[in-house]
């Protein structure tokens, strides 16, 4: 997030796109709702009628996967009607002319047709956005989980730069991160192209720095494989050993049948986890790990805040802290690492090696955490990035972007769009929530959410078991007939193994990030005999 959660409640205008915040980020949503009942203008852009819509001034119910066209249409109106921030665009950004040329190909009528809304809605939204400053834009995986995820994100950034909203409190581009430490895992360099602190592996100076710090002769200079490539290469024999730490890939990745084939192809699979999962079935070695409350350390939240995690209970049996397991493997491979606690790892290595974290030490985050960048120990952290439109990279860069449809669109055989995500009561594959007393009572099974119109046309009753089938697989699941879902859409989660949406989802990826298109594939639904 460029901005902070503390801004949510204070914001005057909020645009939520592709985020069912009340279920996926419930506490963040409470601050948005506080703002809305306090008079802020809330606009929800989402194919589903999510709960936030109850408090919204406007709900623009766009088609799944139409984001770029829709946002280009909004920008078309902003430019055509002179509603954008010319001063900001001139002084803080580059690439406006290219953007303008591109969005002129998306007059509201064309954008409206692709997005399945009216041109007037696009105009109305643009005018509202042009009228209040700053506006805060929030998005979640509805934006990123498409083959054009990067382009969707860029379009959100384009819009906010055009409106002059990046670099100010209660403005910015704010992705709500799905997992507690997905921000931190990126910051730590659990990515194939960067060391901790986003220092590139193909930069010789960065390598020299880490070679010295880690006391090794050389470090690999070629960016590695992203996860989908790793999995694919297991089947080709290019990857022989696969080390899966705390991920239940057999349920979370698209096209479960194929994923399980990949996992079964591993010559040597190590799983390190707190529970046996569908993934550990394929392991050759399973290492038992300490869980959340069983070790000290840090998580970094969506707002770039490094927060402390503390030991409150004892790990069962012989389970060990993960950092210690890695250290012991390193030792057996001839490398002695000196750090002997999470605090030593952070204070003596992470914050020394990552410039944006240099000012963050354990003693400084005993209470509230600090938001990076915090370049030195006097620095109080950074609640707002690109302050006053002064971008970290110099000028904000507009990208001219064309819309492309999802990889798989409905046809005669598979006439519905399937979109997937999380529900309030469970988390991912239920390894944790499914084992927390009481949660299963609130949500005990998966459903396929369909619209009342489709239910009526097909003669499907609420709660009736139906078949949902894609080109990858089929599940039998109860139908949940709900006004949340528009005609033509089926919505499912991936919490329950038997009716997991990922038996159906399409393993196609954004070419840059290799993020899968979980939000769109084609399915058919049938009554069971």
């Amino acid at each position, binding site marked *: 997030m460029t901005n902070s959660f503390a801004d949510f409640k204070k914001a005057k205008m909020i645009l939520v796109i592709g985020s069912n915040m009340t279920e996926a980020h419930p*506490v963040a949503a409470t601050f948005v709702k506080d703002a809305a009942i306090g008079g802020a203008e809330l606009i929800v852009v989402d194919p589903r009628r999510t709960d936030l819509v109850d408090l919204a001034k406007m709900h623009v119910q766009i088609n799944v996967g139409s984001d770029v066209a829709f946002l280009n249409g909004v920008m078309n109106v902003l430019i055509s009607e002179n509603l954008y921030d010319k001063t900001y665009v001139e002084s803080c950004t580059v690439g406006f002319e290219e953007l303008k040329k591109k969005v002129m190909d998306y007059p509201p009528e064309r954008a409206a047709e692709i997005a399945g809304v009216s041109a007037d809605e696009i105009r109305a939204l643009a005018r509202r956005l042009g009228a209040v400053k700053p506006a805060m834009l929030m998005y979640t995986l509805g934006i990123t989980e498409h083959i054009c995820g990067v382009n969707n994100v860029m379009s959100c950034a384009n819009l906010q730069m055009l409106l002059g909203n990046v670099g100010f409190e209660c403005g910015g581009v704010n992705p709500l991160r799905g997992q507690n430490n997905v921000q931190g895992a990126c910051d730590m360099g*659990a990515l194939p192209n960067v*060391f901790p602190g986003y220092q590139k592996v193909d930069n010789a100076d960065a390598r020299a720095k880490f070679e010295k710090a880690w006391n090794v002769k050389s470090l690999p200079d070629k960016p590695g494989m992203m996860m989908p490539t790793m999995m694919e290469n297991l089947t080709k024999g*290019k990857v022989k050993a696969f080390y899966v730490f705390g991920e239940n890939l057999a349920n979370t990745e698209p096209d479960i049948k194929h994923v399980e084939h990949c996992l079964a192809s591993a010559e040597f699979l190590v799983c390190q986890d707190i529970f046996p999962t569908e993934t550990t079935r394929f392991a050759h070695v399973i290492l038992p790990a300490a869980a959340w409350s069983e070790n000290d350390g840090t998580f970094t939240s969506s707002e770039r805040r490094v927060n402390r995690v503390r030991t409150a209970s004892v790990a069962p049996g012989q389970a060990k802290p993960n950092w210690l397991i890695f250290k012991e493997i390193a030792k*057996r491979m001839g490398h002695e690492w000196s750090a002997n606690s999470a605090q030593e790892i952070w204070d003596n290595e992470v914050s020394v090696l990552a410039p944006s974290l240099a000012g963050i030490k354990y003693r400084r985050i005993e209470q509230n955490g600090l938001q990076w960048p915090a370049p030195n120990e006097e620095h109080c952290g950074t609640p707002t990035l690109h302050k006053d439109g002064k971008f970290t990279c110099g000028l904000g860069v507009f990208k001219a972007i064309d819309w492309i449809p999802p990889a798989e669109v409905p046809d005669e055989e598979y006439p519905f769009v399937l979109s997937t995500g999380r529900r309030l009561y469970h988390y991912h594959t239920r390894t944790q929530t499914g084992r927390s007393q009481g949660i299963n009572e609130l949500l005990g099974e998966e459903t396929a959410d369909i619209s009342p119109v489709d239910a009526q046309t097909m003669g499907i009753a609420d709660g009736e078991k139906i078949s949902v089938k894609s080109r990858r697989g089929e599940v039998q699941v109860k139908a949940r007939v709900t006004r949340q879902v528009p005609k033509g859409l089926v919505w499912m989660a991936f919490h329950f193994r038997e009716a997991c949406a990922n038996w159906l989802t399409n393993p196609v990826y954004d070419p840059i990030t290799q993020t899968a298109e979980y939000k769109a594939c084609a399915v058919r639904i049938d009554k069971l005999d």
Partner: protein
Amino acid sequence: MSETFILNGKETPFTPGQMILEAARNGGVDIPTMCYLKGAAPTGACRICCVEVKGARSLMAACSTPVASGMEVFTDTELVHRSRKMIVEFMLSSGRHNCLLCEANGNCKLQDLAYFYKITKLQFTEKDEKDIYPTEDQNPFIVRDFSRCILCGRCVQACNEVMVNRAITQGYRGAESKIVTGGDSPYNESECVFCGHCVEVCPVGALTEKKAKGLGRPWEVQKIRTTCPYCGVGCQQWLHVKDGKIVKVTGVEEAEPNQGRLCVKGRFAYDFIYSEDRLKTPLIRKEDGEFREASWDEALDLVASRFKEIIQKDGPDALAGVSCARSLNEDSYQMQKLFRAVIGTNNIDHCART
């Protein structure tokens, strides 16, 4: 130059628009409250914060009376204390406030006030048993004991004005007043999403946590601050720990970013760590495909030797790993260091992209 008012005879600054309660607290004078909920519109429902204001016809509720320049306010007079004591006595008679049997014992504003006013017996007739609504606990997490409810309305405000889930409201009238959900249906049949904020703000024992029942009195638990393990908001939690076991989770007031708020997962889905399913020992797959228990030394030696073999035969890029976006920064740091510095490959990733 800020404006001033006279608080217990002392000139005290205030900000226009401020209520007496807030201005007095800023001036170092505490006034007891029961229904007052920071961040919500004051209702003045319970009157426990009553104060004397010179010239006013009656005592005023400090939480909902704005300060005016030159106003003379007295918080510590005999009349004020007599009135507050009587309010407490009324509340004590409004149901069954028997602390011995109450989960909120030691964490109860009514108990504190009864103690402060040295109340040793009930002054008024206790509400008749048949007039008390039965306890409702059909759901897995929250017990609603109406015999302890003082109708302060904090839960209503928390639900509507703070969390904005709009499930709880005031129902019925007069002596039949009741805090209700969804037209007086049980929590689990209403709009309730089990964030538990109503429990967090309940000043008495009317709303308590089912899972925590009987597991530890407030004075027996140690509170350890930590960060929620679910989504990416980073809510700050208090883990209530007794004898090395987490018995309850609450939000950290005033903490960034959550300001004391939690969701159903953060508040109630903590006990997976105690599941019997936990992996407790390293496991190695046998020839027949089944797993057998192994020592750490055996398992780690096997991992290291297989890695070394594969590096030697196929090169370091034949190894790949995914780290965990649920686990600690320090864990991910160590894993990428293992892959880069020890194995010699950049084939390290995690689930950020999927």
